[in-house]
Structure formats: C-alpha cells, structure tokens
C-alpha cells in the first residue's frame, strides 16, 4: 500500500513537472478548457438556481386558481362564483383576488398592481417593490400618480418598499388598497380578477377541481402543479437554447483538445522511448500521461466551476441574465441562493474531464507499446 502510494506520488510529481515543461501548451489548454467549463457551469448553475427559486416561490402559491372565461378570454369573476365554490365539499377556503398590470409612461415599465389579501395599505397609500422604487427613484413618503380608467388622476403615497431579498417575485409589485384598485381600473364591487382556492386534503386537489369545473362551466381551473410544469419547461427551453448556442463552442473545444492531447510531438515520443528504456512499463507511461490529463482537466474543471459560481452567485450571472431570466422590462435585482445539484455537477464532470483524459491516453497507449530500443538508434 505504501509502495503504491509512493509510486502514485512520484508519478504525480513528475506529471506536474512535465506539464510545467510545456508551459505554453498547458496554460493555453487550461484557459480554453476552463472557459468552456465556466460557460457551461454558469448556464447550469444559473438555470438550476432559478428553477429552485421558482419552486420555492410556487410552494407558497394557491393549489387551485379559478378564472372566468368569456369567449375564450379571461374575464372578471363575480362573487356569486365565490359563494358557489365555498359550498363545494373539500374546499377549505376560497378568496377573490384583485390584480392586474399598470403601465407607467414615466418609466416605460409595467407594474404588477395587487390588492394583498392581508395587511393591505390604507386608501391613498402604496407598498412598492424594489424594482419600481429603483426605476422611479422613489423613496418612502414620495407620491406617485397614475391616470385612472376614466382619465382622473389617482395618487399614492409610498408607505413602504419591499425588501430586495424577495425581489424575484416582488421587484415590479405595486400593492394598493381594494378601493384604490377598483377606482383605478373601474372594476365594480363584487367582481374579482380570479379566485384562489385551498383544499383540505392535498390528494383531492384534482377531484375538487373537477367539481368546480362541473359546478361552474364558464371557468378555467389552473392547478399549482401545472404552473410548476410550465415553469420547468420554460427554464428547460431557455437553458436548452443557451446550451445549443454553446454547443458549437463545446465542439470546437473538443476538436482542439483532441488535437492537443492526441497530437504527440516528436519530443514527447522520444521521451516515452527514454522512459521505457530506463525501465518504465507501458502501464507506467500510460499512468503518467493519464495523470497529466487528469491534472489539466481537474484544474480546468475546478477553476471553471469556481468562476461560474462567483459569476452566478456573486455577480448575478450578467452574461446570461437577459436570456435565462426573462424579458421583463423591470429586471429583478436580486442575489440567487447558492444551490448545486450533485447530478448536474457529476454530468458536467463526466462530459468534460472523462473525454479529455481518454483523448490523452489513446495516442500514448499507441506510442508506449513501441519497443524501447528506438532510443538506442
């Protein structure tokens, strides 16, 4: 065991010093290799962290959402529907929501206007998201005015700004009182944007949804699971798009790595001959070259992954933000919670470290099986 350890240590020492002898080639390879890992890992870490974030946000959303449709379009839902839903067995609670979008010409941005179910601001006051505050340069106590549906002016005094930690979901929020909301959009009492329903037994969500659908045929039922799936596929699609764009670069890297790793120079061939002549077995030479490949690929992998981590979780992935985060006018300014999927790391590791190490060993194996007497000639 000790002998084996000493042997590996000696080979590793020698592998590192061999790489040092070919500084230009090694550093060039490390830079390109590290860059590819960095870009791929950034895309993976970013989309995974977003997905994770979205999952956590969705965990707090209602299980069932009921919207009224007229001619296939979303319409306001009357409170008679609310009463009807509350009578359905299995329903724990049902509540009407009021929300919508408000275009602010001053900032050329869309806000999400909402009446919070609890702790709503007083009439004439508003609580705004960090994105809204930033885009309007608004502080607590400032007044923001908008034109209502009938052309009259509605003013709000900023009561509070939502903490930026929850910016992913709150950046463009504009929370107002129910009366202000109805006045701004001209929505009469007894009408809501939609209805959120909670169910007593989570396993009965589908059954309850079917009952609502039967009782209220003019409605559309949206389940939380369906939203989750939509989010998943949106992120998958965006991540896939980025990876597809990167695939050209990845392919170019593999060609480059293969050429670098497999193209043995005359000097390297001579060295293999010397090593064999002085008593190294073919397996020793292959072991040495595998270690060289492993040192390069592992260093590049760790370096690339570390840089990707810093890029995504420290700087908010400025390279991929526009593609992966969405197309909203108000980009939420937030820091993602570091979250790593072990399987994803393993996949990236396998597809970057393994092929390079293999590309390194194949030509060495061919060269190392040659008789060592060449060095005598």
């Amino acid at each position, binding site marked *: 065991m000790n002998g084996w350890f000493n042997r590996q240590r000696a080979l590793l020492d020698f592998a590192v010093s061999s790489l040092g002898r070919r500084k230009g080639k090694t550093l060039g390879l490390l830079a390109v290799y590290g860059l590819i890992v960095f870009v791929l890992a950034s895309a993976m870490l970013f989309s995974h962290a977003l997905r994770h974030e979205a999952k956590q946000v969705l965990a707090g959303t209602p299980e069932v959402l009921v919207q009224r449709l007229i001619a296939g379009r979303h319409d306001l839902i009357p409170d008679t529907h609310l009463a009807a839903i509350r009578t359905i067995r299995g329903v724990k609670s049902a509540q009407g929501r009021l929300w919508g979008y408000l275009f602010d010409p001053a900032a050329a941005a869309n806000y999400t206007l909402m009446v919070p179910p609890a702790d709503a601001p007083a009439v004439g006051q508003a609580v705004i998201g960090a994105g809204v505050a930033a885009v309007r340069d608004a502080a607590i106590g400032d007044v923001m005015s908008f034109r209502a549906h009938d052309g009259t002016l509605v003013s709000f005094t900023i009561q509070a700004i939502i903490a930026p930690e929850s910016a992913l979901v709150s950046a463009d929020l504009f929370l107002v009182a129910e009366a202000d909301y109805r006045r701004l959009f001209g929505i009469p009492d007894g009408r809501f944007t939609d209805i959120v329903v909670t169910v007593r037994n989570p396993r009965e969500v589908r059954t309850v949804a079917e009952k609502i659908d039967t009782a209220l045929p003019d409605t559309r039922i949206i389940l939380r699971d369906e939203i989750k799936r939509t989010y998943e596929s949106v992120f998958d699609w965006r991540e896939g798009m980025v990876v597809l764009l990167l695939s050209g670069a990845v392919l170019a890297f593999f060609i480059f790595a293969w050429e670098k790793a497999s193209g043995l120079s005359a000097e390297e061939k001579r060295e293999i001959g010397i090593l064999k002549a002085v*008593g190294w077995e073919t397996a020793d030479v292959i072991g040495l070259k595998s270690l060289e490949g492993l040192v390069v690929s592992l260093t590049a992998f760790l370096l690339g992954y570390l840089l990707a981590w810093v890029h995504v979780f420290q700087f908010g992935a400025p390279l991929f933000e526009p593609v992966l985060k969405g197309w909203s006018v108000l980009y939420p300014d937030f820091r993602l919670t570091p979250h790593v999927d072990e399987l994803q790391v393993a996949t990236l590791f396998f597809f970057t470290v393994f092929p390079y190490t293999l590309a390194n060993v194949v030509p060495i194996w061919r060269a190392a099986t040659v008789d060592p007497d060449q060095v005598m000639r």
Partner: protein
Amino acid sequence: MIRLSQVKKVFNQGRHNEFWALRGVDLHLDMGGVTVFRGPSGSGKTTLLTMVGCLARPSSGRISLGERDISALPERFLTDIRRSTFGFVFQSFNLLKGITALENVMIPAYPLGGDHGALKRRALALLERLEMADKAQSQAEWLSGGEAQRVAIARALINDPRVVIADEPTANLDSERSAQFLDIVAGLKRDGKTVLMTSHDPLVADAPVVDRVIGLRDGLIDGAG
C-alpha cells in the same frame, strides 16, 4: 553470466528494405569486468546490446541471463529484468529536457514506489560521487556534454544494476572527457559492476581498464580478445 546462442535480428523482414543486423551470434559474457564491442557502423554492436539489455527481442536464437532464457519473455517481465539488472548510458545521453539533473537521475526509480526522500538522497550521493553535486538543480539542457554524460551515468546507476550498458560513450566527448569517463568505468569495475560498451574509439578499446574487446562485422563476431 550472459549467454547468446545463434542470435539473429532482422529489421523490416519481408520488405524491400529488409536488413539483417545480426546473423547468428554465439557469445558468452562473464559477470564482472569491462567488455568493449568494437566494429564499424552497421556491424550490429548496438543491436546486440539492445537485446542483451532487454530493450528488444531477437528474431531468432536464445539469450540467457544466468540460467534464465530471456529471449521470449513478455514485455512486462523484460521491463522488470531491464529495470533491476541493467543501467543504460545512451550515445546522445537522452536526458529529459526541462527538468533538473537530479530529477533525471531519479526517473528510473519512480515506478518502483520507494521512499521519495531516500531516493533523492541516493540520487544526490551518486551525483556527488560523479562530481556533479553542484549541478543537481541545473536544467538538463544547460549541461555540457561531459556533464550530461555523468548525469546519464548516475541515472543508469540509480537502481543499483549489476550490468551497465554504454553505447558509444565517448562519441560526443573530447579526449580529456573521454579519459574522465574511463576513470568512472574503472570505479564501476571496482564496485563489481559488469560494464558492456560499444565503441569504435581506439582510446576506449585500448584502455587498460578494458578486459575484453569483441569485434563485430556484418552482424557476426569478428574476433574476441
């Protein structure tokens, strides 16, 4: 004892450039002492030593090391014998560039898995003995011909082999350096090593340290001293 019987070696057999380097060599070499293989270029000296040193196998015939027939052993066993029994000093020294003289000396022992510190001390002691201690940390490519050869000798001795094989050892040295080399050979002889050399340098063949000179011509023994 090393014994060769009817050893033949052919290169590119069956092709237009087929070449018989050895055409049936019978030889008996006792352990200990210094033997020189002398002959013109293409006489088969180097080919003979590559086969004695387990660097290559004969096309036909037998080579025995002691009682063991080594002419048809698989590569792994040949490597094992080569590593433990023979040390090589190549004509162009064949040091690895970009690493130090000390590392070059240590290389043959790496696959054996011995203690690194002990190996380093052994390599330094060998360089010291060959008056190269002050060049231990020099890069191989910075060394002069004579210095490079002494590092190559230290490398050949690192695994304490019984036989040292030197191919045209004075071909790249001036007379003074050649004389220094022969002094080193005398030291090896005193240590009980068997030294086998190829050379067409009269300075080597006529040196007092040499016990036996074997002539080779056209792949056959020409005469044994």
